[in-house]
């Protein structure tokens, strides 16, 4: 079982080790016990055998002494000396009883019985144990275990002692026999502590036994006796083993108890170790899920406690860091308002299906102010605007700064009417002049409103729609415009446009329209701007703003621009051939400007159509320049080297400063239409435009005013030194043929 749980592993390791150690101890004890039992058995047997032999000797000596004393008895000797059978028999019986001998025999020195208590024998028979006599001849007396073979006591074993009868020389032998029976064996067993059996060597049958039949588990030792006999001393091994088995049993009990206690203890300990770990891992999961609020539970002051402390520190630091990151990610550093990302996210958090409105607010003529008064002032103005808009945010709504001077409101549950009312309050709030360093700035704003879910479901679409509506509002000077008023534009249309553009280019659906540019000094039409038009076979005319940004985004513009340049140069060649002194302007996008082959391509075109370079003007937006200023400058220098006129388009929308523009090889500055629209409304803003014109002239730039619609504007521009004007007030974009016709009419009108 391989457990993944630390708790189980700890318990298993601890208990396993204990079991191992205890097992070793038990095995050692068992092994030692066996050896001790074996040694003890041997020792007890050896001691028992020695004691047995000693006892036997002592017994024998006692019997010998007793027999010697008896044989020395004068009356006994006298009786024996009489050789009178009845007397001798009587005396041996009598004296035999004195020393408790069961058998008495008297033999002559010739080895023949003189008298015996054995009924089976008679005087004259040979003494049954001549070997004892032989031994006694040498050492004076002898003894031994002997079996009486004859008579009724046949087979009975005796300890026989033979002593001489001295009077004073040996006149006879007296033999005394003492029973060696089970009782004797039991007595011996009682003293030696061993089971005693007397057996004949190499013959079956037990002559005397202390009882207790021999067990199979007995250890035994054999003590050789005389007379072909031996004593078998037995020791039941179980008797020696008993205390050790008891010891082992108790030890086993202790081990089992110890293992149980240890198991319980280690499980508890593991639990105490693991519980804080579980809490820590739960806390870690919470932190992973982004919940930094809940502090960690208190932990003991050990290593785990230190870990928990580190964890707690990590939690608080991650929380503060994330807060900082979130702030960086979601808060606009300049105004402290939520940024675009935060705005999109807030929209995503709206309950699905709810309605509402997205309002995009743009400060009018901010770029102009920014350029005229500097970025520092521009930034302070933006902060002031944010400060004015902030209090307007309703409950549950949001105000964000999207970029530049573009702000957005998110109004939940707001319908068209509520949105319009809110937009009115926004405009009202921004209508008051802003005072910066004691200088009053009149600012205005426009608001584009997109409603959801009607105008879109996602924030990006809604913002874009609102921005389109904003553009509409600005164009109309209406202040407020709804996305719905700008015409329906299903979201999927953009995608199909991209696919359509490629086909349109091949099918010749793109055309160029030419808008005249009037030189205010001479009152002559000196140039036209070539504007791209798309006549869609199904949707009709598609405004450039609706497909050119996508062409730029997808890079398709790189295929369109060559066509535009080709067409424009071609037209310029035609007019040049016709004797018309008209320059043609074409627009370049960012991608075009970064194309390293741009200069060569333009030169080739001019050469191919034999057009003088001054008849071609290329218009570049500020933002196109800002993408890679160094590369842009290099390419512009190359184009300028060809003699082509270069114009900065939509000046005032972007952030480019005049100082930077001066470093470029540009000839012309086109003021964005929004400035022109403002000049007749606010004298102060007019002053900004005027100063811009003066500055541009000082830098040697031609100033072109775009979006000139009224005679008043035209007049103001002429009066304030603007070089060239362009707009509906002069002439709409038209085909080349229409332009030629219009130009003829214009010439007539001017003359008139």
């Amino acid at each position, binding site marked *: 079982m391989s457990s993944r749980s630390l708790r189980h592993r700890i318990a298993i390791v601890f208990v396993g080790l204990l079991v191992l150690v205890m097992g070793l101890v038990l095995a050692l004890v068992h092994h030692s016990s066996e050896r001790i039992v074996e040694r003890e058995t041997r020792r007890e047997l050896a001691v028992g055998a020695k004691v047995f032999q000693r006892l036997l000797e002592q017994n024998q000596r006692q019997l010998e002494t007793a027999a010697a004393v008896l044989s020395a008895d004068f009356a006994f*000797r*006298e009786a024996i*000396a009489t050789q009178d059978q009845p007397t001798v028999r009587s005396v041996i019986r009598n004296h035999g009883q004195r020393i408790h001998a069961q058998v008495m025999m008297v033999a002559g020195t010739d080895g023949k019985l003189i008298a015996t208590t054995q009924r089976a024998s008679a005087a004259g028979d040979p003494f049954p144990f001549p070997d004892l006599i032989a031994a006694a001849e040498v050492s004076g007396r002898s003894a031994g275990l002997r079996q009486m073979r004859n008579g009724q006591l046949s087979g009975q074993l005796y300890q026989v002692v033979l002593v001489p009868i*001295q*009077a*004073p*020389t040996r*006149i006879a032998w007296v033999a005394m026999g003492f029973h060696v029976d089970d009782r004797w064996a039991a007595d011996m067993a009682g003293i030696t502590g061993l089971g005693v059996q007397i057996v004949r060597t190499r013959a079956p049958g037990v002559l005397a036994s202390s009882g207790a039949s021999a067990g199979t588990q007995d250890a035994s030792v054999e003590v050789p006796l005389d007379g072909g006999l031996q004593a078998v001393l037995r020791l039941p091994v179980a008797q020696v083993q008993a205390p050790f088995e008891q010891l082992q049993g108790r030890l086993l009990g202790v081990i089992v108890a110890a293992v149980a206690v240890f198991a319980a203890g280690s499980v508890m300990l593991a639990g105490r170790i693991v519980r804080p770990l579980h809490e820590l891992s739960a806390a870690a999961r919470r932190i992973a899920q982004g919940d930094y609020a809940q502090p960690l539970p208190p932990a003991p002051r050990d290593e785990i406690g230190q870990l928990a402390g580190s964890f707690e520190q990590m939690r608080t630091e991650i929380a503060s860091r994330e807060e900082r990151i979130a702030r960086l990610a979601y808060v606009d550093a300049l105004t402290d308002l939520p940024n675009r990302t935060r705005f999109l996210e807030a929209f995503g958090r709206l309950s699905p299906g709810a309605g509402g409105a997205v309002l995009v607010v743009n400060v009018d003529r901010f770029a102009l102010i920014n350029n005229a008064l500097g970025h520092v002032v521009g930034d302070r103005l933006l902060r002031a605007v944010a400060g004015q808009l902030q209090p307007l945010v309703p409950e549950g709504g949001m105000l964000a700064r999207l970029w530049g001077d573009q702000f957005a409101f998110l109004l939940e549950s707001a319908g068209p009417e509520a949105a319009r009312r809110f937009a009115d309050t926004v405009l009202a709030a921004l209508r008051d002049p802003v005072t910066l360093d004691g200088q009053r700035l009149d600012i205005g704003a426009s608001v584009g409103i997109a409603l959801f879910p009607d105008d879109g479901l996602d924030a990006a679409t809604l913002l874009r729609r609102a921005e389109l509506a904003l553009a509409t509002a600005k164009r109309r000077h209406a202040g407020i415009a709804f996305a719905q008023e700008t015409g329906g534009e299903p979201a999927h249309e953009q995608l199909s446009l991209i696919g359509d553009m490629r086909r349109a280019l091949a099918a010749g659906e793109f055309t160029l329209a030419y808008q005249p540019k009037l030189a205010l000094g001479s009152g002559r039409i000196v140039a036209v701007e070539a504007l791209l038009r798309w006549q869609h076979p199904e949707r009709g005319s598609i405004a450039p703003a609706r497909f050119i940004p996508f062409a730029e985004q997808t890079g398709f513009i790189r295929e369109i621009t060559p066509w535009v340049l080709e067409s424009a140069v071609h037209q310029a060649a035609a007019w040049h051939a016709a004797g018309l002194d008209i320059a043609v302007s074409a627009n370049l996008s960012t991608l075009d400007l970064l194309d390293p082959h741009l200069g060569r391509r333009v030169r080739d075109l001019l050469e191919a159509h034999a057009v003088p370079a001054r008849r071609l003007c290329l218009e570049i937006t500020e933002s196109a320049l800002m993408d890679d200023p160094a590369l842009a400058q290099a390419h512009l220098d190359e184009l300028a080297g060809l003699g082509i006129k270069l114009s900065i388009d939509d000046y005032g929308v972007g952030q480019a400063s005049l100082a930077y523009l001066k470093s470029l090889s540009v000839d012309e500055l086109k003021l964005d239409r929004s400035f022109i629209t403002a000049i007749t409304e606010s004298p102060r803003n007019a002053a900004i435009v005027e100063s811009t014109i003066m500055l541009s002239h000082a830098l040697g730039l031609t100033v072109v005013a775009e979006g000139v619609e009224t005679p008043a504007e035209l007049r103001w521009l002429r009066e304030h030194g603007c070089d060239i004007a362009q707009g509906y007030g002069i002439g709409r974009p038209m085909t080349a043929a229409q332009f030629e016709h219009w130009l003829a009419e214009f010439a007539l009108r001017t003359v008139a």
Partner: protein
Amino acid sequence: MRRALLPLLCAAALAAGSASAATVEVLVQTPAGTPLADAAVLVEPLAGTPARPRARAPGAKGVAIEQRGREFIPWMTVVQTGTSVDFPNNDTMRHHVYSFSEPKRFEIKLYAGKPGQPVVFDKPGQVDIGCNIHDWMEAHVLVVDTPYFARTGADGRAAVTNVPAGHYRVRPWHPLQKAAVAPQDIEIEEAPVRMTLLLDARARQPKPHTEDDPDRY
């Protein structure tokens, strides 16, 4: 030839016997060649030789086996049948002299000094005498019919003197002999007879006075 010689020899003996006496000198030794002390050398007259009484008459000079130092002295005594023997006690303690031997059974119970009656050994044979109080005390009396006998000294030599000429049988005897040896017949004339006899016997070994052994009691 033997038949022719025998009468001649007999005649010579008879002639000499009546006329003179001689000494028989005997060396008794064990088969190992060790001189045997306390052996009796008996010279027994064969048929035809008169067994005249010894020069010193029995009783004239009494035979005694005294007890001194808790020992019988002498250890070995040879007497002619009918001799009275005294057992004077020269020790400070009493003795209890007894004999269970067939030729003469007697018992002189606990006495001091000289007992009243001497013991008369009236049958030939060996009489072993002990003391019932002192087991180590031992004396042997060899009762013989012949008047010609002697006891070997420490050198194993004995001389039987004044043996009249005639035919005799010479026999050694020792109380501890293992078996009787065959006697040797000799002719005694005037010249002394020297002979060596072999007798397989255990020499007397003084028994320890167990009473004096302090370890025993």
